[in-house]
C-alpha cells in the first residue's frame, strides 16, 4: 500500500493533469521526499532535474487518489455536515482510509456524486457504472434514483448544462428545500415545500437529495 504522502503526490499530479493537460509537475520543496522515491520504484512516475512526470502506469492510481479525496470532501459536507472551512484539512486525513472497496461504499452512500463540493469532477469508479442494488444504504442520492415516497432535503444541484440549472432555479428548486418524491413514472413528480412539480428524468438526475429516514 502507498504511503499517505505518496498518495498526495499522485493526487497533485492528477489535479495538474486535469487543469493543464499532461504536463510535468515542478518538484519544488519535495525534492528529497521519500514518497517520490517510492513512486519511482513502483513505476508510477519519472523524474528529471526539476520535474516529475506521471507515467501511464500511475495514471489509474492518481485518479483513484483524486477520487478518494473528493469523495471524502463530499462525505464531510453531505453527511457529516462539517463546516466548509475545514473540509479540506479533514478530508486530507480521511481520504487515506478510503481503500479497498470502502471508497465504493462511500460513493454509493453519497449517491455516486459527479462533483466535489467545490464543483470539481470526481472520477467515476466501478460502482458508478454498476446498476444500483435495491435496499442499499444511501444518505444522498440523485432524485432520479430515489423510490416513491422517499423524503429528504435538496443537498445540491449538479449539471453541466447551465440552461438546465437555470430552469431548476426558475421554478425554485434550490438546495436546502425539503422534497419528497410522489411519482417516478411517466415523469418525476416531487413535492417541494407546499408545491408540486413535474420534471423529466434528465432534470431529476441533476438534483441530489440528502435522505431523511421516516
Amino acid at each position, binding site marked *: 500500500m502507498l504511503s499517505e504522502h505518496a498518495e498526495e503526490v499522485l493526487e497533485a499530479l492528477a489535479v495538474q493533469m486535469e487543469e493543464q493537460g499532461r504536463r510535468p509537475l515542478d518538484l519544488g520543496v519535495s525534492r528529497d521526499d521519500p514518497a517520490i522515491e517510492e513512486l519511482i520504484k513502483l513505476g508510477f512516475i519519472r523524474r528529471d532535474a526539476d520535474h516529475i512526470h506521471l507515467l501511464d502506469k500511475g495514471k489509474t492510481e492518481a485518479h483513484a487518489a483524486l477520487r478518494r479525496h473528493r469523495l471524502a470532501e463530499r462525505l464531510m459536507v453531505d453527511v457529516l455536515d462539517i463546516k*466548509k*472551512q475545514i473540509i479540506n484539512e479533514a478530508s486530507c486525513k480521511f481520504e487515506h482510509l478510503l481503500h479497498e472497496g470502502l471508497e465504493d461504499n462511500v460513493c454509493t452512500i453519497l449517491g455516486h456524486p459527479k462533483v466535489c463540493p467545490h464543483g470539481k469532477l470526481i472520477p467515476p469508479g466501478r460502482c458508478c457504472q454498476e446498476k444500483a442494488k435495491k435496499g442499499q444504504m444511501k444518505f444522498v442520492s440523485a432524485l432520479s434514483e430515489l423510490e416513491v415516497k422517499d423524503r429528504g432535503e435538496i443537498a445540491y444541484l449538479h449539471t453541466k448544462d447551465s440552461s438546465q440549472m*437555470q430552469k431548476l432555479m426558475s*421554478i425554485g428548486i434550490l438546495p436546502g428545500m425539503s422534497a419528497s418524491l410522489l411519482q417516478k413514472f411517466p415523469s418525476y413528480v416531487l413535492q417541494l415545500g407546499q408545491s*408540486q*412539480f413535474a*420534471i423529466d428524468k434528465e432534470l431529476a438526475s441533476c438534483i441530489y437529495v440528502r435522505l431523511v429516514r421516516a
Partner: protein
Amino acid sequence: MPEQNPKKNESTGGCAIGYSDTLEVYIAKITELLTSKDYKISKRALALLLLQEDQEILKGVQEKDVQNFPLIEGIIQEAKRHYTQPLNYIISLRRQSEANQITSRIMSFGKSPLISMQERLSRIMMNPLTGGPILLFVLYYGLYKFVGTFGAGFLVDFLENKIFGNYINPWVTQWVNAVLPFKLLQDLLVGEYGVITLGVRYAFAIILPIVATFFFAFAIVEDTGYLPRLAMLVDQLFKRIGLSGRAVIPLVLGFGCDTMATMVTRTLPTKRERIIATLLLALAIPCSAQMGVILALLEGRPLGLVVWLGVIIFVFLLVGFLATKIMPGELPTFYMEIPPLRLPQFSNVLRKTYSRLKWYFKEIFPLFIFASLLIWLGQITRIFDFFVRILEHPISWLGLPSEAAVAFLFGFFRRDYGAAGLYDLKKIGLLSGNQLVVACVTLTLFLPCIAQLLMNVKERGIRMGIAMSVFILFFSFSIGYLVNLILNFLHISL
C-alpha cells in the same frame, strides 16, 4: 471556499441581502463603473443582474455606459473564474437562505396526515393507468359532445342557415347589388365567394361558434389544472417526437383551431420545438371543422373510422420521430409546476373565453377576408380551373374520381364546400368505402386551410412556411396513395 461570510449590507439601509466578501467586492467594483444617470433601478441591483449575465441588462448597460462596458465585462469574467458554480446559482442560494430565514421566523406548517380528496383525484389523473380513461372522458364530453355536437352542429346550423342564410346574406346582397352596378365588384363582396357572403359569414357563422365553444371548454379544463397533469403523462412519448410535455397545450388547442394553435406554439421554449409543433399541427392534427366533416363522411363506417384514426396517429408519430432525427438543436427538457386541482370559476372562464376570442378575431379575421379575395381572384382569372385540372392527376393516383379535385381545392379555402363536394359524390354512390377513407386521410393531412398556411408563414418565416407546405402537399398525397395501395393489395374493402 467563498460564500462563507454573508453579512448585512450597511450602505443600502440594512434590508438588502449581503453576499460573501468576494462577491461584494465585485459588486462594489461594478457599481462604481455604472456612471450613467438613466438607470431606472438601483446600481446594486444592476450589478447583481450583470454578474448573473442577464442579457437584457447587459445590452442596456452596453448602450448607456459605452466606455466602461469593457471594464465591467472584464470584472464579470474575473468573478466567474473565482467560482466553480455559475454566479446566478450562488446568488440564488444566498437569497434562498435569506428567504428561508425570514419565513422560518413567521411561518409554521401543521402536519396533515390525511391526503385530501383533491390530492387523491390529482394522483388518479397522474397515474398512467387511470389517466388514459380520464383523458378519453375529457375528450369525449369536452371535445366531441360540447364542441362537436353542440358548437359545430347546433350553433353553426343556427347561425349559418337561419341568421346568415335567411337574413344577412339576402339583405346585404340586395343592398350591394342596388348600390354597386359592376358585376365584378358585386362578386367580390357578395358573390358565391364574396368577402361578405363567404369571408365574414365563414368567420362568424362557422368559425365563431366552433371556436367559442372550444375556448370555453378549454378554459374550463385549463382552470381545473388538468393540463399540467396531462403534460406530465405524455412527456416521455412526446420526447420521442422532439417535443416536451409542455407541447400538449398547443397540440390540444389544435383540435379546436390549428391556426390559433400555431400562434400558441410561441409558448414553447426552443425554436426546434416550435418548428416540430407547427409541422405536426399542420399535418396531423385535424381542427374541429375538419373533424366534423370527416366524422360525417365516415358515418356508418366504424372500420373506416378506425383505419383513418390509425393512419393519422401513425403519421403523427412517424413525422415527429423523423423530424427529431433530422433537425439539429438542443433536446427539450420538461419542467412544470403542478398546481392544486381547483373548481373553475365561471366568471373567470367567461373572461378567458372572451379575451381569447377577441385576440383570435384580431389575428385571424383578416386572413379570412384575404382568403375570399384570393378565391375571387382565382375565379375571375380562371386560375382555379387550371389548378383543378392539375389536381385531377394526383387525385386519380389516389384512386378517386376526378370530380373530387374540386372538393380538394375548395376544401383548402372553404371547408364546408369541400365537404359538400365529397358528400354529393358519396350520395350519388361515386365513392366506395375505401375511396372515402383515402379521401379523408388525404384531406386531414393536407394543410387544413389557407389561414393556417398564412399563419405558418407569419410565425415560422416565409422560407420555412413554404417548405412545410410543399412537404405536406407531397406527403399527404403519398400517404393517401399508400393507403389506397395497401387496401387494394390486401383486398380490404371498408
